[in-house]
């Protein structure tokens, strides 16, 4: 009667947990076996560089900075005398970044991509602010579909890009030289932004 039915259910319950004893575990041992994120998953944000010339694709149009909901991207690119913006510094504060992917969608020069990488934990908070060099270096091995409209006329010789027609931002060498004098100048209006 009731007791036997209860006993049966109790033993049935133990049977179910018991039969899992023999089954293989579903968890992986993290440092030894790593979880490979599928393609297109939103890991850390990296700056992509042109495959041939190795320069940054970023044309400092500041669209990603405006699209970021948590003001994590801080770009310093004042207008040069020839009315074009020269990229001086491009910082992403991964302490603020919420990995939403809006910056990647806002950028139509495929200069910015969320790589399927997830190991970037640091000991201190301000190590989470990555500057341009580190972003570019992390973005080296990330392959991407180059959807930019080719500005250069179709002359056969790849050679050094024609200076005038190339609207790609100034090569990083220039950014290097500008960097040492005034490290990471914070323009006033961003100062108030990073709350």
């Amino acid at each position: 009667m009731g007791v036997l039915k209860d006993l049966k259910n109790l033993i049935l319950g133990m049977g179910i947990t018991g039969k899992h004893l023999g089954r293989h575990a579903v968890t992986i041992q993290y440092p030894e076996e790593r979880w490979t994120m599928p393609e297109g998953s939103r890991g850390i944000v990296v700056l992509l560089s042109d495959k041939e010339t190795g320069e940054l694709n970023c044309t400092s149009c500041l669209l990603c900075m405006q699209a970021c909901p948590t003001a994590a991207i801080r770009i310093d690119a004042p207008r040069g005398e020839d009315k074009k913006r020269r990229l001086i510094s491009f910082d992403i504060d991964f302490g603020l970044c919420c990995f939403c992917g809006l910056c990647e969608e806002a950028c139509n020069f495929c200069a910015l991509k969320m790589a399927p990488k997830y190991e970037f934990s640091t000991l201190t908070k301000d190590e989470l602010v990555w500057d341009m060099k580190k972003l570019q270096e992390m973005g080296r091995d990330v392959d991407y579909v180059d959807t930019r409209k080719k500005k250069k006329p179709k002359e056969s010789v790849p050679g050094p890009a024609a200076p005038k027609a190339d609207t790609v931002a100034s090569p990083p060498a220039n950014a290097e030289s500008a960097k040492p004098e005034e490290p990471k100048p914070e323009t006033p209006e961003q100062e108030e932004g990073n709350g």
Partner: protein
Amino acid sequence: MLLALMSLELVHIFRWAYGLLADTGLPALWVLLISYALLGAIMFGVLAVLALFLVWWERKIAGHIQQRFGPMRNGWHGWYQTIADAIKLLQKEDVTIDARDRFIFFWAPVVCFVAAFLAYICIPFGNGLIVADLNIGILYIMAVTTFTIIALLMAGWGSNNKYALLGGMRSAAQVVSYEVPMVASILTVIIYVGSLSMVDIVASQQSFFTWFIFRVPFGPIAFLTYITAATAEANRVPFDIPEAEQELVAGFNVEYSGMKFAMFFLAEFLNMFTVSAIAVTLFFGGWNGPWLPSWLWFLGKTLLVVLLLMLFRWTYPRLRVDQLMEFAWKFLVPVTFGNLILAALMKYLGWYW
């Protein structure tokens, strides 16, 4: 090969050591004292290692039941994980609140730890492997295992914390009310053995079919009621309300940390082993078994019963306090007493083998 296995009986080693000690010419009293001190030390060592092994084994079994690995980091499959935990707990700072009841708070874990060890004096680990074959063996064990209630009450009251007090009160009510069915189901076995001494109980179950689990009408019922009451004694899950994490945060050991907490923890696992050792001695014929040495049989059977207790823990939810009491008094006690009468009747009518 068989002969080699047979000779693995440990009792000869103890007799040889005792003989060695005897002819060193010390007076008899001294010899007795030293031998019992040595035996105590060995027992403490064996049981401490056993407790550490049980903790590790429970975490591995729980892991594999839940389809994960359990401790893997320290050593192959984490074998010295519990030793690492013990050392960590040893050197952890012993945080104590100053509003505690100093004396009771300090002695609660000691009482709990000692109570867990006292029961092993008359548990037969193997053929002749028994510290002291008291002729009131099982009665002594029942008396000693109720010490844990005092320890839990002391811990509950001593930590001056509402959650701990609730845990302490609950454990007192639970262990007292499960003592009655446990003793009653043990009595059904004692009727047939006729003596309380554990060695006689094991002796009466020589052949395979004379195990009490197979004496059909009352044997299995006695075993089932014994196991249920025993899980309540050892505060194991369906009845682990004294330290129900979800309700009372950590029940009676909420204010303990460091070595004091480790004592409670190890005592709980030792209680689990005691309870399954008694179950094996009473129902599964203690250390009787063909071929293998007797202590290996005892250890194997007890670990099987411990596995059963672990399966309880990782399958069943927890009973509420009043349901637990109701289950004990309204269901277990009548069943065990009915079983007792049935066993006595069958003994009187002679229908037993």
